[in-house]
């Protein structure tokens, strides 16, 4: 094996999407040295870069109150009315920072800057420039495989530099995990790398997760494409193979389409977009038109086949559970931001997709960066002299004899069990139990026998992350014996007021679940 790459900084940020960039910037502004390691390339990594996303912002108290009110209505009792305004305010403030620094927001018809939308490729390229300019050391194609601890305190991470073929070790006074949600191998825009790596690494140290049953948001894609962008379908009508229209009651689009998709192929046509709309759609959402233009479909006049693709926890709400606003997850020296965190605070049992998640990435990124910077400052300059030990288990340090384990088989199993509409959109106790038996067996095999170094370790850890998130998701779905938000149980189709509480899970190998107590801050709706 080639020489080890040694990195040192006050703060280490793992990830390359918006939350990671905002965390890195905040830690630099607090005067700390920062290293960023990303699995991919900072600027194109993650679900934001290939997309066009709304933002969740308010420049007046009235608008803010309205936004909070709207979300509460959908959250089915699990959102946090205290925390939403803080997310909105912090995100709004930093959207203005973006504008001041030169991000080219468009102007609306009144000539005002339109900060309600970010164009993914431009936004993330801009964020990379800001991060580099701020003096952050950016290491692309450096996936992290495990955390390092000094005693019980997180003190860095270790991984593999894919393009250099070298292992790396990064020592730091504090670590921010901003590695995104888990897409369970779904081929949606920007999600292949979202394999739950950060959730696994933090859980190996004893961090809890919450809301993992809300991991089954689905998006519409033109059939045989990855483009899960929802805005154009606001003007869509939906059809069956015989051309008959599918009637969709208000707010019921996804359950109705999911049900229809089990009966036969489903189709759409953007036939409610008339006048100037087709042109504005085409110019405003160019990525949505790639599948149409490249397949020579006129979506405004032709009926085209569509499918529902899983968006996992990326647009679900489950993830690591914050113990404090600064992004702590109960492990000293560790801070978490963005989709790696649970987002029930702002979304409850509904999707946070679009604006709320984009603003969540900004706000929690800033908070985690500040939190990590303050922790590192308290440790001082000798932090990186500490003796550390690695903490990764499955895929790195097998519990029994080493055998040849194919990570691709584990990934295929996760896709098979987590992605189909009939397994995961419409859940039931027997289906969940059957899937869990297979996932648990695959997990046990990987935990006991898999051992890799270098590129093989990287693939095994991705498989371990996917399996871990799958098992948390289905265990939580099994425990929540009711229907709430995106979690739909065929065998318990009503909501149960006694379960109007969050559900947390702790432990990688033997996950333990518990409903959290009601808190007065969580608004009943």
């Amino acid at each position, binding site marked *: 094996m080639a020489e080890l790459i040694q990195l040192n900084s006050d703060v280490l940020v793992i990830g390359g999407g918006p939350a990671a960039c905002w965390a890195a910037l905040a830690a630099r502004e607090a005067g700390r040295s920062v290293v960023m390691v990303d699995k991919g*390339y900072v600027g194109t990594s993650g679900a934001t870069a290939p997309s066009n996303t709304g933002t969740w912002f308010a420049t007046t108290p009235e608008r803010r109150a309205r936004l909070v009110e709207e979300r509460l209505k959908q959250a089915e009792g699990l959102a946090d009315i205290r925390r939403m305004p803080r997310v909105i305010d912090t995100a709004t403030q930093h959207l203005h920072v973006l504008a001041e620094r030169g991000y080219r927001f468009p102007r609306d018809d009144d000539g005002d800057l339109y900060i309600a939308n970010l164009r993914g*490729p431009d936004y993330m390229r801009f964020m990379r420039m800001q991060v580099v300019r701020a003096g952050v050391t950016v290491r692309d194609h450096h996936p992290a495989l495990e955390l390092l601890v000094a005693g019980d305190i997180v003190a860095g991470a270790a991984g593999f530099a894919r393009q250099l073929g070298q292992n790396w070790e990064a020592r730091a006074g504090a670590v921010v995990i901003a590695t995104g949600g888990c897409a369970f191998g779904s081929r949606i825009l920007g999600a*292949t790398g979202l394999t739950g790596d950060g959730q696994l690494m933090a859980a190996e140290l004893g961090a809890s997760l919450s809301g993992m049953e809300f991991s089954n948001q689905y998006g519409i894609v033109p059939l045989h494409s990855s483009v899960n962008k929802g805005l154009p379908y606001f003007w869509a009508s939906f059809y069956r193979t015989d051309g008959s229209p599918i009637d969709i009651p*208000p707010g019921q689009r996804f359950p109705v389409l999911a049900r229809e998709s089990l009966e036969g192929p489903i189709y759409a046509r953007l036939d409610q977009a008339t006048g100037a709309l087709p042109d504005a759609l085409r110019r405003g959402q160019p990525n949505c038109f790639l599948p149409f233009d490249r397949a020579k479909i006129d979506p405004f006049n032709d009926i085209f086949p569509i499918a529902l693709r899983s968006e996992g926890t990326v647009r679900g709400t489950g993830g690591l559970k914050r113990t404090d606003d600064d992004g702590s997850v109960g492990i000293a020296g560790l801070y978490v931001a963005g989709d790696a965190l649970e987002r029930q605070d702002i979304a409850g049992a509904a999707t946070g997709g679009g604006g709320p998640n984009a603003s969540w990435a900004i706000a929690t990124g800033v908070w985690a960066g500040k939190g990590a910077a303050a922790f590192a400052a308290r440790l001082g300059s000798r932090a990186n002299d500490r003796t550390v030990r690695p903490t990764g288990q499955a895929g790195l340090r097998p519990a029994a004899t080493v055998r040849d384990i194919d990570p691709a088989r584990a990934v295929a199993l996760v896709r098979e069990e987590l992605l189909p509409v009939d397994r995961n959109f419409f859940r039931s106790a027997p289906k969940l139990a059957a899937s869990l038996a297979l996932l648990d067996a695959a997990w046990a095999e990987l935990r006991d026998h898999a051992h890799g170094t270098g590129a093989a370790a990287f693939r095994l850890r991705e498989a371990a992350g996917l399996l871990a998130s799958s098992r948390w998701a289905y265990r939580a779905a099994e425990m929540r014996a009711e229907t709430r938000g995106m979690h739909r149980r065929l065998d318990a189709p009503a909501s149960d007021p006694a379960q109007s509480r969050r559900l947390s899970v702790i432990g990688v190998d033997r996950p333990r679940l518990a409903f959290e107590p009601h808190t007065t801050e969580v608004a009943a709706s």
Partner: protein
Amino acid sequence: MIELLSENRCTACNVCVKACPANVFDTVPGSVPVIARQQDCQTCFLCELYCPVDALYVATDPEHVTGITEGAADEAGLFGSYARALGWRKGREGGADQDPTHRLRQVSLSTARPAESRSSKP
């Protein structure tokens, strides 16, 4: 997924090797890069934007290879078409300030289908 790397257009700048978030390309000493791990492609289309000479083509099917030829893609004007639609040029960003999405959202928020506008993910 990524299907075409046009050797006629490519200048071997290797930006795609660097910018692909899924590490799909490999450099080749003294030559143009290769698509080394096609199945890892996440069909995000971003390599097309970062390529300064429009030498890459990503087909929209994320699961299967369509087998499109360079000649067919060229004839249909597909090389660089996403970059042109966004306003990116020569691998550099542009056009975000011309984004008319505010008009779309105005309409989607002002019409009488609030339940659906909430459930659609922009």
